[in-house]
């Protein structure tokens, strides 16, 4: 009599369920709305800029004939500085993350992890001041050495800025700011590597480095890409540290050590906005819109990369 199987019933919806799903939905919608509001605001403020006269564009009178001539060097500088920063930050971050997850004794690993996380909590104005007063003077002799030793290498051609306020210094400061982000995420992903895979590799006679190459890195590849993209996002949008450290020009230039450096969109807005009025405010807003689009494109590209990797290399 007791063995009758109850028909499948829908689980009754309790108040808690409904509240939670409602709250989660609301949270998701608020984010979308906020993003939409930012986009609408940027577009609305930017519209007058596209037809701006040369005299309304910041810079020496008539220096930039159209808005696009003004924004192109800024967009270049933004991507250039961020990419340079990632070139330094990614290898360092992966090395630190691997050290913490697979090499360091547990006690040291925990302390080191906390210290790296702390780096992310330092405000960018502090990084800016550090860049001006400590890091710049510190790296200047190295930059001078580079310029004197490799004068034939175009990127290093002088004259070196007397305070090392060049794009290479800025890229290194940005790298230091980005490292904690990439490290923290990579570390967590490396720790997720299935224990069985690692032990199997070791059992086959792999050394620790071979084990990491065979199991940890392939497993974490998508994670490393997404961590790097998050870092890239921070580097693209970083404002104050760049504004303080860089000697900025609105130019396209690949020289790493000179005083005339391509500046970034965010730093340029920060420096020009307080004294801007009339249509030049709209022009600055429109450069912000361009940054918004760049960031969006970078994120979409990284999503695509992660999606392809995850689909191809399931573990």
């Amino acid at each position, binding site marked *: 009599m007791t063995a009758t199987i109850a028909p499948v019933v829908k689980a009754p919806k309790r108040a808690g369920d409904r509240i939670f799903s409602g709250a989660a939905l609301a949270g998701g919608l608020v984010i979308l709305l906020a993003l939409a509001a930012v986009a609408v605001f940027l577009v609305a403020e930017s519209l007058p800029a596209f037809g701006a006269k040369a005299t309304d564009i*910041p810079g020496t009178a008539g220096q930039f004939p159209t808005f696009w001539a003004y924004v192109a060097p800024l967009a270049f500088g933004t991507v250039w500085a961020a990419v340079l920063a990632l070139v330094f930050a990614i290898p360092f971050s992966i090395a630190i993350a691997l050290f913490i997850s697979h090499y360091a004794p547990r006690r040291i690993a925990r302390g080191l992890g906390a210290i790296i996380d702390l780096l992310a909590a330092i405000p960018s104005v502090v990084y800016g001041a550090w860049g001006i*007063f400590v890091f710049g003077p510190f790296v200047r002799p190295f930059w001078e050495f580079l310029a004197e030793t490799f004068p034939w290498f175009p990127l290093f051609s002088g004259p070196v*800025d*007397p305070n090392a*306020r060049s794009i290479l210094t800025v890229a290194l400061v940005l790298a230091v700011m980005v490292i904690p982000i990439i490290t923290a995420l990579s570390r967590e992903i490396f720790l997720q590597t299935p224990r069985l895979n690692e032990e199997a590799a070791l059992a086959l006679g792999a050394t620790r480095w071979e084990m990491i190459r065979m199991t940890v890195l392939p497993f974490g590849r998508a994670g490393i890409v997404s961590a790097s993209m998050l870092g890239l996002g921070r580097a693209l949008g970083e404002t104050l540290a760049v504004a303080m450290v860089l*000697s900025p*020009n609105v130019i396209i230039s690949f020289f790493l050590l000179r*005083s005339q450096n391509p500046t970034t969109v965010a730093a340029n807005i920060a420096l020009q906005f*307080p004294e801007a009025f009339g249509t030049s*405010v709209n022009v600055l807003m429109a450069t912000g819109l361009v940054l918004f689009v760049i960031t969006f494109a970078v994120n979409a590209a990284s999503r695509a990369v992660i999606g392809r990797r995850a689909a191809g290399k399931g573990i």
Partner: protein
Amino acid sequence: MKHLRAGLAIGTALTAMIALSSCASNEPAATSSNGGSSSGAASLNGTLNGVGSSAQSNAQTAWAKGFQTANSSVTVNYDPQGSGAGRTAFEGGGADFAGSDSALPAAELSGDFKLCKAGTKGIDIPVYVSPIAIVYNLDGVKSLNLDASVLAKIFTGKIKKWNDSAIADLNKGTTLPSTAITPVYRSDKSGTSANFTDYMHQAAPSDWTAEAADLFPTGIGSGAAKGSGIVAAVTGGKGTIGYVDDSSVGSLSVAKIKVGDSYVAPSAEVASKSAETSPLDTSRTGNDVVVKINRTTTDSAEYPITLVSYLIACQQYQDSSRANLVKAYAEYVTSTDGQQAAADTAKSAPMTGTLLSKAQAAAASIK
């Protein structure tokens, strides 16, 4: 009927009293003049919000402190967001007054002022005068003479070494090293840049062909954000030269500028004299007081690279209590006490003579 009338009378009296007292809390100066009290300023209350020039920041802090000490129920807030931001905020009604390193440009003067009575405009009142120092960092050279032409050639990159004959001619008896010169300029828009470029353009037009500009033309030298950034860059580099407000020079060496046949170092005295003797902009009408600093002066008691910064207020506010507050504040700022307070705190040059009385008259004309 009698009762009713008495009731009415009492009622009217009560209403009048309430009206009067509420009037007293809203429009202090109006009641004090009605009451015949002579201590009009003592009954001021409310909050005064200013936005504008960061050059005025220290002076505004001193003025706010002095004004609040004299009027304990008034709060003065000054937000040093920058001159352009200040003017925009004031014109849009977001600030009661603006601090600005440049006088209202014609384009803005023809626009609307939200807080001002319809048909009236904003006026510029000079409040802050400060010399701009040419600072440099060159090993072994403690004293340096420069003129407009040499400065313009340095900042356009035509003079590249410190031992260039043009510099040596001005500094006979000083041994100049062959160090390369790195000019350091402001990478943000600034009144300091506007005054410095105006000086070079007027005093050496053939060497500095560009008009005065808030944004220093880039391409030569190294850019640094804000006055503090210039000081850091000049201090940290070798063979650097830059321009900053005289109050933030610190331990850097300051060049003397050729005026007439002699060389003048920046100081409060020479800047005050320069501001006082310079002509006013005659295109301005009424109480709009705008100084055109004489950049080509030959009087060695003057210093041509001097910045005059303005307090911008309505000639006539829509709101009379706001008008009273701004007027009282502007009167304090342009008083000898106010000017001295700024000189003590911000190391500015106190205004003197006719310029001071013109500024005071403009402040008193606010309605």
